[in-house]
Structure formats: C-alpha cells, structure tokens
C-alpha cells in the first residue's frame, strides 16, 4: 500500500477500505438512551436522599424544624423565645418593694443594754 501524490484522497479511500467492516453494534442509540435514563434516575435519587439526610441532621440541631413551626428550645442553643416559669410559680408577678423596717421583739428576749444599743442605731419602734 502506498500513499500517492493525491495523498488526501488516497488516505481517505485507503482508510475507508480498511475499516469498512468496523461497524457499531445494532441498537446503539437505545443502549445510550437507556444508560442516560439510568444515570439520571440515580442522580435524582442521590439528590433527594441528600436533602432528606440534611433535613434529618438539621432538625435535632435546631437548624431546621418540621412543619415550619419555630424550633423548640434546646440547651446549648440560643433561641429567641422568652423564658417561662415552672407551673407552680406561674401567675402574676408581685413587686417586692422595700418597706420600712418593722421589727417586733419581746422585751424579755434582749438585755436592757442590747435593747438600748439597737434602738439607738435603728429607728425601730419598740412595742412594750
């Protein structure tokens, strides 16, 4: 075999002659389309499972919540809910202000000297 002056033509003819029995198998397009569908199904399944896993990890961490409700408070995480008291302490809060000292002592419990020093330092009324 030789390549002659008209190289381009003779090379093309020679290659075609040598490779004319090289043919792809029948139904190649169907095989490719089926392979494409299989790959795409696998990809979609992978993406869906990734979302499910991400949500599954996110809910207990408080990063996401089921049903769109606010995430419950969990220790160690900061949330924007106001604190609440346990049930037995629930009810209207009362203001505890400082009132004037009002001490009632029985005179017999203190010695006269101690009683005198106490009344001089504080303005307690002594009920006799």
């Amino acid at each position, binding site marked *: 075999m030789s390549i002659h002056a008209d*190289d381009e033509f003779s090379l093309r003819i020679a290659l075609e002659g040598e490779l004319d029995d090289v043919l792809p198998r029948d139904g190649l397009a169907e095989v490719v389309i089926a392979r494409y569908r299989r790959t795409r199904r696998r990809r979609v399944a992978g993406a869906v499972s990734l979302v499910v896993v991400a949500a599954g990890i996110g809910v207990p961490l408080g990063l996401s919540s089921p049903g769109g409700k606010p995430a419950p408070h969990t220790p160690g995480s900061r949330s924007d809910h106001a604190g609440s008291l346990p049930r037995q302490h629930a009810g209207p809060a009362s203001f505890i202000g400082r009132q004037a000292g009002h001490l009632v002592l029985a005179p017999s419990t203190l010695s006269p000297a101690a009683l005198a020093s106490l009344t001089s330092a504080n303005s307690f009324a002594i009920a006799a």
Partner: protein
Amino acid sequence: MRRGNREAEFTEFVEAASPSLLRAALVLLDSREDAEDALQLTLLRTYRRWDRAREAPAAYARAVLINACRERWRHRARHPETASDMESLGDTSSAEVISFAEAVDRRHVLVRVLRCLPDVQREVLVFRYLLDATVTETATALGIAEGTVKSAASRGLDQLRVLLSAQEKRGRRVHPR
C-alpha cells in the same frame, strides 16, 4: 422539546455518525473494546447535552470523542498493567511495532502505521481524513492553532508515506512475487 422528538433526532444522528466515530476511535485507541467504550461515552455525553449539541451534533460529538480518547490515554498511563500488547512494547522502534502488529493481524496495516505516529499528527489525520472535519473544525476540536493543524497534517502524511514504503519493502522481502 418533546422527549420522543429528542430521541428520534438522536437515534437518526447515531445511525448516521456512529460508524465513522467508531473507526476514528479505533485508530486513536488501540483496541476494539476501548473504541466501543469511548464511542458509547461520546454518545452519552452528546445526548446529555442534546439541546445544545443538536445544532451541530457531528462537530460536538467529534470534540467529545477526542476528550474521551485522551481520558483513556491518561487512564492507561496511570494503570500501565492494562496496557495492550502494542503499548507494552515500550520504546521499540516503529518498524518493530509494525512487524509485531503484522504478526498479530495482517489486515489493518494502515491503521497500525497511523498508531505509530505522534499523537497530534495522528489526531489531525483522523479528524481531517476519517471524520471529514475542516481545518477550522479540527483546530477547534483539538484546541490547537489552524497552522498547527496544517503542519501536523503535512508531516503526518510524510511520515505515513515513509513508514508505509518501509512496510511495503519488508512485505516484498518476506513474500517475494
């Protein structure tokens, strides 16, 4: 685009283009199995991007095919244990490679001689004369300048002529008429 329409267009393209793509892959790679794998990968990637490829599917598939063949060469380089007999000859001369290949299969002489050419020359000759690509299309698909395509084609043809005439002389010596 409807799925049925897309599939029909693609099937028509595969029937028309796959023989030449397979032949090109067979020259670029060195085994029928590798060539068929590369062809299937090429068609799969083309179908995946069919909306874009359908404007010029042959050009798109040619560009994909050369990438698939290069991927396979790189894979071969990383996994030399899977190299074929032709490659496992290592740094033997072209003439020795031809004679070895001749012993294996006396048909496809031109294909085996083409495989002895440097990669760029072989790719250019395959694109220009087997896939009927223009100089511009070849340059775009291979990622080289048009001048490089022309010079590689010219050198490749010269080299091919030399190798084939050497092959012819050896054939005459082995089989005197």
